[in-house]
């Protein structure tokens, strides 16, 4: 065994060790670390600095009663929590709906329906989120529920499209090989198709998460709460510090979520698929 290689990037295709039968020295499978320390530290450090700077600036800012009022009673903390809940719950429903639907639409019998379903999902995403939300509020009434439904409709497409693309991108000879050695249909899906589609599905999930952090700011307009509340009150009352606070928190949350998702992508990607 060799010492662990310092850089996982070198894990590209193994040196063409064509000396048939391993007569030549070939690189032993190295324990690989996919998550580098840069990956782990750079973004959190940046976020920390950003938040610290905002906090310092905010403390030094000159706040009047209106501004103070809009951040009183732990309002910031409450909105942040609401925002996270909105994001997590909507993403959960997106996954529960889009992934099984994507799997279903790649099964042989249902495949013809795929374009139609994608078109519908496309409509969901093409509609301006705020308009969609307004319509849903009329239908479902004011509150978090309307906001959640809107966010789910809005974010289904990337996950659905990526699930379908991921499953379709699999070399059909591999699927046939799996059937040929005696795997059942469920076995082929579970052991071969899904693991191979994981990278693309995860990429879709990451997109959906980041989208949801963004659209969750609109939940405020339907009475769903979230950081949109701070932003809106900052705008309507013309209080710059409040507006900046809300925006910075949203941006930081989006970056954090994206970072977490990118870590998940690295860790959940099946080994053996090549370093990305």
């Amino acid at each position, binding site marked *: 065994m060799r010492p662990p290689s310092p850089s996982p990037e070198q894990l590209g295709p*193994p040196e063409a060790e064509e000396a*048939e039968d*391993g007569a030549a020295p070939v690189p032993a499978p190295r324990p690989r670390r996919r998550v580098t320390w840069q990956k782990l530290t750079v973004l959190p450090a940046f976020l920390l600095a950003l938040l610290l700077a905002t906090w310092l600036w905010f403390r030094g800012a000159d706040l009047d009663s209106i501004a103070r009022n809009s951040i009183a009673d732990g309002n910031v903390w409450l909105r942040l929590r609401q925002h996270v809940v909105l994001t997590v719950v909507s993403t959960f429903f997106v996954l529960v709906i889009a992934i099984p639907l994507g799997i279903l639409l790649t099964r042989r019998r249902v495949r013809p329906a795929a374009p139609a379903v994608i078109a519908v999902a496309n409509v969901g995403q093409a509609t301006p989120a705020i308009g969609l939300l307004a319509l849903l509020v009329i239908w479902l009434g004011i509150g978090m529920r309307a906001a959640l439904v809107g966010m789910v409709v809005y974010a289904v497409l990337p996950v659905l499209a990526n699930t379908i693309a991921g499953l379709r991108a699999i070399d059909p000879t591999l699927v046939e*090989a799996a059937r040929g*050695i005696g*795997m059942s249909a469920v076995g082929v899906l579970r052991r071969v198709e899904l693991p*191979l589609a994981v990278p693309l599905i995860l990429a879709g999930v990451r997109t959906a998460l980041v989208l949801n952090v963004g659209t969750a700011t609109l939940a405020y307009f339907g009475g769903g709460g979230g950081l949109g509340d701070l932003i809106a009150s900052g705008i309507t009352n013309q209080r710059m510090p409040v507006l900046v606070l809300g925006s910075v928190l949203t941006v930081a949350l989006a970056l954090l979520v994206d970072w977490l998702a990118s870590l998940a992508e690295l860790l959940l990607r099946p080994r*053996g698929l090549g370093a990305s």
Partner: protein
Amino acid sequence: MAEAAPRPPEGRAETSGATVRTSGATIQTSGATIQLENLTKRYPGNPAPAVDCVNMDIKAGELVVFVGPSGCGKTTTMKMINRLIEPTSGRIRIDGEDVTGIDPVRLRRKIGYAIQASGLFPHMTVAQNIALVPRMTGWSKRRIAERVEEMLDLVGLDPGEFQGRYPRQLSGGQQQRVGVARALAADPPVLLMDEPFGAVDPITRDHLQDELIRLQHELHKTIVFVTHDFDEAIKLGDRIAVLRERSHIAQFDTPEAILTNPADDFVSGFVGAGAALKRLNLTRVRDVGVVDFPTATIDDPLQTIFERLRAGTTNEVLLLDRHHRPYKWLRRGDLMRAKGSLVRAGTLVHDTVTRDATLRDALEAVLIDNAGRVPVTGRRGRYEGVVDMETLMNSVHELLEEDRLDAVEHQHLLEEQRAQQVLEEQEGTTDAPEELA
């Protein structure tokens, strides 16, 4: 090249195989018969069937090669055996059992399947890939681990080194070996191979073919092998089915018979030019007999060597070294010119062939040699005799003549059998497949 391959120690596979066998369920090691009866595949919207009424009897432990131009339906025919493609009509029997209607998943677990470009799953290690079928059939963990090592040994890969690797960390040839190991892992009686060596370079392919022959020698599976390469078919097949469009069997016979007596123009077109040359690949030097040649060793006194030279009909002797290996060709005048010094006299032997070499290799060596002969060596390079142009020519003529006679006889036999079968069918007492088996 051949020496580079780490061969598993002889008999190792057998012994560990035995321990595996005692520790678990019954395993059927040798092959099973396969019968195809009126096997037909039609695709909707196409009036002409893709495979039209194939009838074939494959014996247990036989390696049958389906060969034919691309699009002739050979792969479709093969995939109907494990029902990756469901036949439209007709019947498949494996070991006498009608498998046309049974659960295809259960069927496929008893049939090994190896395809072009290995078909390994990239997200699983070599060991996981090989363990797939045993795991699905419910073997114990320990038994699977043992089996994986045994299989890697069998295909000539070091288990310690390769088990934990992912397919993309292997060369094409190594992947193909693992593919074969996976196909054999649950010890199926039947093995289907769909152009398994089509995607590797010629040298590796040659090597893998040799390995397959060796494996088959040990395992005696029933193998159906699909290829479009006729030379591969000749090299590997016990029998070859030459297929034409819609999987019509143009000829189904031994390689010798097909080479010497092609059934029709299609087959001879497929055999291509140089059938006699290809025939040379099927015979080894040991089969044709070598001729003696006057020899002397370098330890013999000069006087003896002189006498041999004078007495011999060829006015040349082959000088052997202390270990009886061919060393120099010595002509009558050589010693004179070298003033009696053996060290300087004569020309060095630069090429020898072993008894296991094919006649084609021998012919090549003979053609290159300026006197048209080449020494044959046995164990440890010891001299065994000489082949020359004349012996080669004679034996090739004899071989071809023999083949021709065989083929004619075979034809007769087949016709008789067919007549017999027809007769029996008419009498209603038929069970033709058993009759043939």
